């Protein structure tokens, strides 16, 4: 075993995949220096032909990613901020997502759009999103949200090997989080949830940094409420079976998601719960999400995004 932090785990996954498969390359803005660390160190190992610093042109970068993917490569497009999906929406949400469908299954676009996501550093309305719902609204894209270094590595390797465009958003707040990583290679298949904490009274579904909020809340409540924390790890594909099995046991559920509440991930998961295991519910599905407003920056940020206290309150609200 070795101890790696979150970005080192991602970087190691990228390096291993680039080593294994020469069609894998990285394209993006400042991917050589890597302001968000995840691609750091790769330039020395693989050179500028495979770690390509591109102009600040998200449409061109994303479009070239899709084009190269269609033509036989497995590019990893580093958007830097996940928010920049908005800048490259045409190419990611229409072209990448729909390539396989539009071309009648004859051409697919195996690529990864990675970006650092989430709030926590007061970076304001345009650099703090986890734009999950927007991605999920465009079938054809997969969405991976790793909450730990172990998951981050195994999921990145699966994302690169997937034959579809995969959005891989990792969280700013998790950068320094360390964990023991096996020496031997491992891959975590997309669509397999992980039970991050066992419990019997209430199920909390959360991804990315919200998993840690859920775990903190569970710890705070451990003497009164036994909380089960489920991390789906990918929202498309989504492992509803694990969620349903947990609810069959607990009969109560809170969905925590960092994206905007309205028409969001929690709404979708909540609805699926009602469709698939209504008869197991003993309380209405509760959700904790970002407020329906732009994400404020600096000091005001905390009033827009989910906090541990909010998760605790939501858990209590369903455990009557």
């Amino acid at each position, binding site marked *: 075993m070795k101890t790696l932090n979150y970005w080192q785990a991602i970087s190691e996954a990228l390096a291993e995949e680039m080593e294994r498969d020469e069609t894998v390359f990285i394209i993006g803005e400042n991917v050589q220096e890597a302001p968000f660390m995840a691609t750091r160190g790769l330039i020395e190992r693989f050179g500028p032909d495979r770690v390509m610093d591109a102009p600040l*042109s998200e449409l061109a970068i994303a479009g*070239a990613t899709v*084009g190269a993917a*269609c033509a036989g490569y497995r590019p990893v497009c580093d958007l830097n901020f996940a928010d920049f999906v908005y800048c490259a929406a045409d190419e990611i949400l*229409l072209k990448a997502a729909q390539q396989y469908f*539009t071309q*009648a*299954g004859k051409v697919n676009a*195996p690529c990864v759009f990675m970006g650092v996501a989430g709030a926590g550093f007061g970076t304001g309305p345009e650099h703090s999103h986890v734009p999950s719902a927007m991605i999920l609204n465009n079938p054809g894209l997969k969405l991976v949200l790793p909450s730990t270094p172990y998951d981050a590595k195994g999921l990145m390797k699966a994302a690169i090997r997937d034959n*579809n465009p995969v959005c891989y958003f990792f969280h700013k707040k998790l950068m320094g989080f360390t964990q023991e990583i096996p020496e031997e290679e491992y891959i975590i298949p997309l669509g397999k949830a992980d039970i991050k904490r066992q419990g019997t009274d209430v199920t909390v579904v959360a991804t990315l940094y919200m998993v840690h909020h859920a775990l903190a809340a569970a710890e705070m409540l451990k003497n009164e409420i036994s909380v089960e924390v489920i991390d789906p790890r990918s929202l498309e594909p989504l492992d509803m079976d694990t969620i349903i099995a947990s609810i069959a046991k607990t009969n109560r559920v809170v969905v925590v998601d960092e994206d905007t509440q309205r028409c969001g991930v929690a709404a979708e998961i909540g609805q699926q719960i009602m469709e698939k295991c209504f008869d197991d519910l003993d309380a209405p599905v509760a959700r904790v999400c970002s407020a329906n407003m732009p994400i404020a920056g600096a000091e005001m940020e905390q009033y827009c995004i989910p906090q541990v206290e909010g998760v605790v309150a939501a858990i209590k609200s369903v455990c009557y």
Partner: protein
Amino acid sequence: MSRLSKDQKLELYRMLVNTRKHDELNVRMASEGKLRTFYHSAQGHEAIGVGACSILNKDDFVYPHLRGHGIPYMVGKRIDPKQSVAEHLGKATGWGGGITGVHIVDKDNGVLGQGGTIGTAFVLSAGFALAAKKNGKRQVCLCFVGDGSVQRGQAHEAMNLASCWKLPVVWVVENNLMAWFTPCCDSFALKDIADMAKTYNMPGKVVDGMDVFAVREAAEKAIDRAREGQGPSLLECKTYRFRPHSEGRPDVCHYLPRPKEEIAEWKKRDPIELCRKKLVDSNVLTKKLIQKIDEEADAKAAETERFAQESPYPDPSILPSLVYAP
């Protein structure tokens, strides 16, 4: 033109006639209500796709322009266009399996797919070219766009990126002086789109888009350059669309009908007639041969129509399987 053999010249002419006949077929079927989608006629544009694609290798990439929905490019690349018509009838034998009725794909012949929103052509073709540059197979990408596409941001991002990285891509702008209903004179700050190439430090050239030989010659030069690793080029082929933006739409400039005299003036330089005249003048074409080529093209179009009509619709149950690749 002079460098071409008699057979090459005749082939180009045949391609033009074939393209026109198939376009006319689509136009007729659109008016008959048989097409299950919209259709943007390529009439007036034929020389560009045919001329430029005729010099490509089989494994070179082509990103088709929307006009003719692939027909001029497929014909130019020596691909049977009958699947275009089948696609527009929504048939399973269409280029896109009848799934979208619009988008075309022929992976084996380097047509990796065509998008719906314009401008995307620029960035995706840069991606094809990036792959071509990486794989060392000396492939190039020929990408056809309209003048409207150049007005989108992707055009500029792609030209800059491809020029920086010397990607083997040639952008052929089919400038028919009209983006939808808005004329270029009101929507471009410069006279010639080719001049944009200077900004991105690559060759730019204005070409007579009605003259198949001129297009072929200019394209050949740009493609050779790309194949040699010297980077992208921008060709602006001046042309004119003979029909409305899409079938069944009023043919207007802004909101008033396009002047009949203007259309008549451009039709004097119809790319097919222009080519025919040149070949008749140089004794390559005879009256008899012209008739024979027409008859062959008519027969081919009839066969295409039959093929499309008789083909089955796709099985809708396959749709969910097309969302994600296995």
